[in-house]
């Protein structure tokens, strides 16, 4: 049974196999699949760790590193921008202060202010004033001064000097402006309150609507280093810087971190001061001083805080940002935010991770598909094997597995086939044995049946024999009884009457002696006769003459010849049927039968004046039966059985000992026949019937 362990090993992956191909894989394929899946998982974990770092450790992975790096760059950039902007603002404020404190400027202004006052008093025209100012020596000096200041720095758009009292432009880099009046509102916002130093505001140009950074500084009479409160401000210098044109390009002068890099500059009210790089989400241009950027970094910045964070910008786009604040004037803070789109910075990393995930997923998928295909390849023969096994189980021992290849499955298939061969062989053996056994059983059954039949027959025979034996026994008993009774009867007579005779002689009364002696003699004779007849009876069946063919008619005629005297004496009409058959039998005994029966008939007809005796043959119950019929006294049915008994005489007065019919019965029985008597009763005559079955009639006699 070497095949069994192999069978078991190979079958185990198949055990409980449903429709799933994976389940029907062998161990090797399964392991390969499991390890493939494990590899994919490890790959994924490693790339995740590399990307996002290890949790609960300082390792933040490539994603974190990238993020940190960008944050640093942003912070650095923000610092640089803040510093540049602050320095620039301070420079401009310094420019204004220096200009405002120039002695030449102050004196020129104070002189010009007299001219203006006169003119104002005169209610002169603007053109005239303008011309006066332009032609005035001091006016020319101031013009030269502002032009000189403008030339000192590229950022300046225009520079004006105004009369604090009237808001009149005294001098300007643009001559057209001279003599114009700045609106009160405008003036209020531009000209700082006394003692507050320079003011820096961003506003819209009333001339062209462009944003302008306006730096203004009061110009005071007298020495500036004296207490400011004592001197009065009679003028102001105003420096204009173009917002979009200069400030914006100034801010974007730094190095690029990313394409999406942008700098948002807001005032205290979170209004943008320069337009952003990208349009807002809601569409339309984001106009400076109109568009409010209320985001986390801008809010934090104007609160005076600085730092980096990840948040969303005005577009709701996730960003990495560094936020700073710039104190432009003591009561004016700007917010600066340098930001990049997170997606641009971390996008590639995420992309890589995504690709890695996709690739490993694809790998697992591919492995699964391959495994499935492989499993199918390996499982198919096993499936075939299973199908065949089921078929075999269902009773088809002709089913065979197609053996493919020499691998384990092939070997298993071959083993399986040889197993079925063996089973089939056994089955055939078994069937053969069953057939043999069945036929033997059938034979035995037949024998048994025959035996049973035989036994039943034997049983019937036995019962018949027992019955016969019982009747013989009863007959024997009756015989013994009869003999003892009938023999003791004459003996009693002899003994008793001998006693009477003796007594008679003693008493001398011999009257009865003669008759008594006669009784004794008769009794002795009867006894002798009885003994002789008993002997005769016992001879029947013991001493048998060899059977010969004999005509019953002839035998009957012979019997009548022996009785001729008696017949003649009775004048009886005796007839014999001439066609009685020839039989095989004991001639002397059958002669005795006819003789006794005829003798008997003569006795029974003694009261009949015309006795008739008829001897013949007839069909009785499908057999031949002979009869002796008389027209005598007949026999009462009650006694018809008794008459064949030994010494049983119906008529005590009739002759004979009563042994004749017993002898006849005995002879018939020895011949295998049966004897019975038929009589309607007293006075109807009687018919004695007998059969001789052992003496088959062969031919009809005369």
């Amino acid at each position: 049974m070497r095949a069994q362990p192999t069978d078991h090993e190979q079958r185990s992956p198949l055990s409980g196999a449903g429709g799933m191909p994976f389940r029907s894989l062998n161990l090797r394929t399964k392991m390969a699949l499991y390890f493939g899946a494990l590899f994919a998982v490890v790959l994924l974990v490693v790339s995740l760790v590399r990307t996002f770092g290890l949790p609960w450790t300082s390792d933040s992975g490539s994603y974190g590193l990238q993020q940190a790096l960008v944050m640093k760059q942003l912070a650095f950039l923000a610092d640089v921008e803040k510093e540049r902007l602050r320095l620039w603002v301070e420079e401009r404020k310094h420019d204004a202060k220096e200009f405002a404190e120039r002695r030449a400027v102050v004196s020129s202004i104070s002189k010009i202010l007299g001219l203006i006052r006169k003119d104002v008093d005169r209610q002169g025209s603007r053109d005239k004033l303008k011309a006066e100012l332009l032609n005035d020596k001091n006016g020319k000096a101031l013009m030269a001064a502002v032009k000189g200041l403008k030339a000192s720095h590229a950022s300046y758009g225009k520079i004006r000097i105004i009369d604090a009292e009237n808001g009149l432009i005294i001098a300007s880099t643009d001559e057209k402006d001279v003599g114009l009046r700045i609106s009160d509102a405008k003036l209020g916002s531009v000209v700082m309150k006394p003692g507050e130093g320079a003011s820096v505001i961003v506003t819209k140009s009333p001339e062209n609507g462009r944003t302008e950074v306006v730096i203004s500084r009061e110009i005071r009479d007298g020495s500036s280093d004296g207490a400011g409160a004592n001197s009065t401000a009679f003028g102001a210098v105003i420096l204009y810087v173009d917002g979009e044109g200069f400030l914006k390009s100034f801010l974007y002068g730094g190095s690029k971190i990313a394409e999406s890099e942008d700098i948002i500059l807001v005032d205290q009210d979170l209004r943008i001061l320069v337009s952003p790089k990208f349009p807002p989400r809601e569409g339309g241009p984001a106009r400076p001083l109109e568009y409010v950027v209320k985001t986390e970094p801008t809010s934090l910045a104007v609160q005076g805080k600085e730092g980096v964070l990840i948040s969303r910008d005005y577009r709701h786009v996730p960003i990495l940002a560094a936020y700073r604040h710039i104190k432009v004037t003591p009561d004016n803070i700007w917010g600066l935010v340098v930001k990049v789109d997170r997606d641009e910075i971390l996008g590639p990393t995420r992309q890589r991770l995504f690709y890695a995930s996709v690739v490993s997923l694809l790998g697992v998928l591919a492995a699964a598909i391959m495994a499935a295909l492989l499993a199918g390849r390996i499982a198919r023969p096993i499936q075939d094997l299973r199908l065949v096994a089921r078929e075999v189980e269902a009773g088809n021992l002709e089913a065979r597995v197609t053996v493919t290849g020499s691998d384990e499955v092939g070997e298993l298939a071959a083993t399986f086939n040889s197993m079925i061969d063996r089973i089939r062989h056994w089955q055939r053996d078994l069937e053969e044995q069953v057939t043999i056994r069945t036929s033997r059983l059938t034979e035995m059954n037949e024998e048994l049946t025959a035996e049973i039949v035989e036994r039943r027959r034997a049983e019937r025979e036995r019962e018949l024999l027992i019955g016969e034996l019982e009747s013989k026994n009863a007959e024997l008993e009756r015989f013994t009884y009869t003999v003892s009774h009938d023999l003791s009867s004459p003996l009693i007579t002899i003994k008793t009457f001998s006693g009477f005779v003796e007594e008679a002689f003693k008493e001398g009364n011999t009257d009865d002696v003669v008759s008594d002696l006669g009784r004794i003699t008769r009794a002795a004779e009867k006894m002798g006769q009885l003994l002789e007849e008993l002997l005769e009876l016992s001879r029947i069946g013991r001493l048998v003459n060899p059977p010969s063919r004999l005509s019953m008619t002839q035998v009957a005629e012979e019997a009548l010849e022996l009785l001729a005297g008696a017949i003649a004496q009775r004048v009886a009409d005796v007839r014999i049927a001439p066609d009685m058959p020839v039989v095989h039998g004991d001639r002397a005994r059958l002669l005795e039968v006819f003789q006794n029966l005829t003798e008997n008939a003569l006795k029974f007809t003694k009261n009949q004046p015309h006795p008739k005796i008829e001897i013949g043959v007839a069909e009785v119950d499908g057999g031949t039966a002979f009869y002796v019929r008389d027209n005598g006294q007949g026999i009462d049915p009650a006694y018809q059985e008794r008459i064949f008994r030994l010494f049983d005489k119906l008529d005590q007065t009739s002759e004979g000992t009563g042994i004749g019919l017993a002898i006849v019965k005995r002879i018939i029985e020895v011949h295998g026949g049966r004897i019975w008597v038929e009589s309607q009763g007293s006075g109807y005559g009687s018919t004695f019937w007998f059969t001789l079955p052992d003496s088959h009639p062969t031919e009809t006699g005369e």
Partner: protein
Amino acid sequence: MNMKGEPLTILLVEDNEDHAVAVKRSLRNHQVANEIHHVIDGEAALDYLFRRGIYANPADSPRPHLVILDLRLPKVDGLEILKKIKETHELKRLPVVILTSSQAEKDIAMAYDYHANSYVTKPLDFDKFVGLMKDVGFYWLAWNVNPHHPEAPDV
């Protein structure tokens, strides 16, 4: 004669003439009975007892005081007669003595089953035969108290 002055009567049922003579002579010699009626077969015995046929006249068939019955009889067997006597209302008290040469156990048992009053066998010895007859006669006719016979029911 009995105390009532009736003649003592015996019915002897015996087929053997010699035996009947011997019985009668033995009884007569000892003067036991006044009358002995002898019948030679069963049929005659029944006729006598039931007063039929030639015995139809009661004068010819006086009721016996004892029945001596042989068993082996022609025509009607002795046991059959016994049975009939004991089955018959007005005869059943009649003493019946079986006198036979048969000593067969079956016969003895049957006789008693049919309520025979006594069973004796015929002895082969003369003295015993005569003595038995005398004793049976004396016993049943002298010593034995005879019953009163019930009347035959009106038919």
